[in-house]
């Protein structure tokens, strides 16, 4: 039967496409991923009276709350130039945690699409990351305005945020694809995700300096400093926070993390492609 099919130019269906075909197919439908993320953003805000303004209001409120709480609680233990340090950490961390949790539910939350249309499923977690990126833009606007007000200075190194964010999006896409497949196979994971995000928040040095805290524990520091979230946030601080520098080590770490994440994420997600439609 296989020869008869081949003689008539028929291809085998249902089998998972080769990785290169899969990536090509997904790339040719990138319009879909972009449209899905901007439409979902609109839909999420459509029922609120302030609509898209929430994308600016919420991060501002968040920054004010964290500034107040951690500023008062930490007292004299605060890292230098505390508010810019904290705000950069909080806003960038929100991107990672959002990409992780919405990437994890991207297949299960869009079951209507998954069940009725066939398209490369990787577009769904990627679209969740694009959505977080679209959310990040107004937040970055707020952040840069705050930094300008507090530090009263603007430097060329702010431009380094552009490649940093590109790397962050690449890293988050891999992360989202891994989370998406794991959630489909083990639904219980959705219960653990808020916990994982919390832990990541506390160990990534959002409101304290990891280096200073671990000054007496060089071995722990040697491990902790490879935490990718920490690396990305430190690198971004190097770009915009006075008193921080972008080291070559951080650039290398972030580039390696991004590439590793997107390669592993794509292959891992693609390996289960035919299973996502099944419920």
């Amino acid at each position, binding site marked *: *039967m*296989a020869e*008869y*099919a081949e003689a*008539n*130019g*028929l*291809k*085998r*269906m*249902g089998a998972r496409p080769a990785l290169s075909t899969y990536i090509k197919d997904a790339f*040719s*439908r990138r*319009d*879909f991923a972009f*449209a*899905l993320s901007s*439409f*979902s953003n*609109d*839909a999420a805000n*459509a029922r609120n009276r302030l609509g898209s303004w929430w994308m600016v209001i919420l991060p501002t409120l968040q920054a004010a709350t964290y500034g107040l709480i951690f500023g008062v609680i930490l007292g004299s233990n605060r890292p230098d130039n505390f508010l810019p340090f904290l705000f950069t950490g909080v806003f960038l961390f929100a991107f990672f945690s959002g990409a992780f949790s919405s990437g994890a539910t991207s297949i299960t939350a*869009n*079951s*209507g*699409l998954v*069940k*009725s*249309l*066939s*398209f490369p499923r990787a*577009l769904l977690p990627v679209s969740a990351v694009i959505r977080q990126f679209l959310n990040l833009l107004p937040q970055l606007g707020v952040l840069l305005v705050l930094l300008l007000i507090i530090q009263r200075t603007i430097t060329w190194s702010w431009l380094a945020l552009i490649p940093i964010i590109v790397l962050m999006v690449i890293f988050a896409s891999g992360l989202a694809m891994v989370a998406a497949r794991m959630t489909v196979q083990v639904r219980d994971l959705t219960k653990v995700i808020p916990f994982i995000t919390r832990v990541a928040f506390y160990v990534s040095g959002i409101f304290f300096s990891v280096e200073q805290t671990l000054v007496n524990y060089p071995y722990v520091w040697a491990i902790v400093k490879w935490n990718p979230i920490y690396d990305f946030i430190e690198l971004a601080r190097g770009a915009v926070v006075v008193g921080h520098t972008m080291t070559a080590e951080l650039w290398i770490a972030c580039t390696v993390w991004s590439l590793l994440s997107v390669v592993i994420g794509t292959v891992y997600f693609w390996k289960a492609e*035919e*299973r996502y*439609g*099944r419920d």
Partner: protein
Amino acid sequence: MAATKKPAAKKPAAKKPVVIIDDVHIVYKVYASGKRATGAAARNGLFAKKTNLRSVHAVKGVSFTVYQGDTIGIIGSNGSGKSSLMRALAGLTPIDQGAIYSYARPTLLGVGAALLPNLSGEKNTMLGGMAMGFAKKDMEKSIDEVAKFAGLEEFIDLPMRTYSSGMAARLRFAIAAHRDHDILIIDEALAVGDLEFRKRSEARMREMRDSAGTVFLVSHSMKSIADTCNRVIWIEKGELKMDGKPEKVIAAYTKAIGQALDK
């Protein structure tokens, strides 16, 4: 392998095949809670929940070959495996044994799914078309056409969750059918449409068939099947029961139902 039909490959290959279904098996593995919802077993307390893996053999070795220009009607009772087979053909469900060959990736138009309920009909049209691989520009141009075909011009800017099931089904069909597909599978998607829409969509399906497209129509409406299809396949309990001219198969199917009711 169903006993009623020889593998079509053994026929003289005068017509060009477009889809070959070769001894396809589909087995679902489902976690079932290992107790009944009522009775003593239900009162075992919080942690007594036992789950066991049940496998359901939905399609048991179906084979047939579809030739260019065919419009195939698929009939059979609920739960007979029709939709499973169609989903496998579209690549939405993996098959456990056998193989499916096709010259193009089929597009499936299924029931129930509201695509994205919180988005307007217009945005759902854009997304649906783009997911099927059409360019954004083409979809922007076709929105009015799709809305007109679905008869939803007035409502196209409302969220899809506000549509009735008939309206949603009409929009889904219009999205899928506004362009020619090499292979289109319609799975009971027309059942809730009104009479006028049914006539319009049947005309569209015949048009697609004439432009060398292949259409699979899963339906419980024997009239729809008889009006649009030139070949009918009857699937029962996961096996191919009959394959042939519409009049013959529909007559046999109707007779079998009549006998089952008399018993």
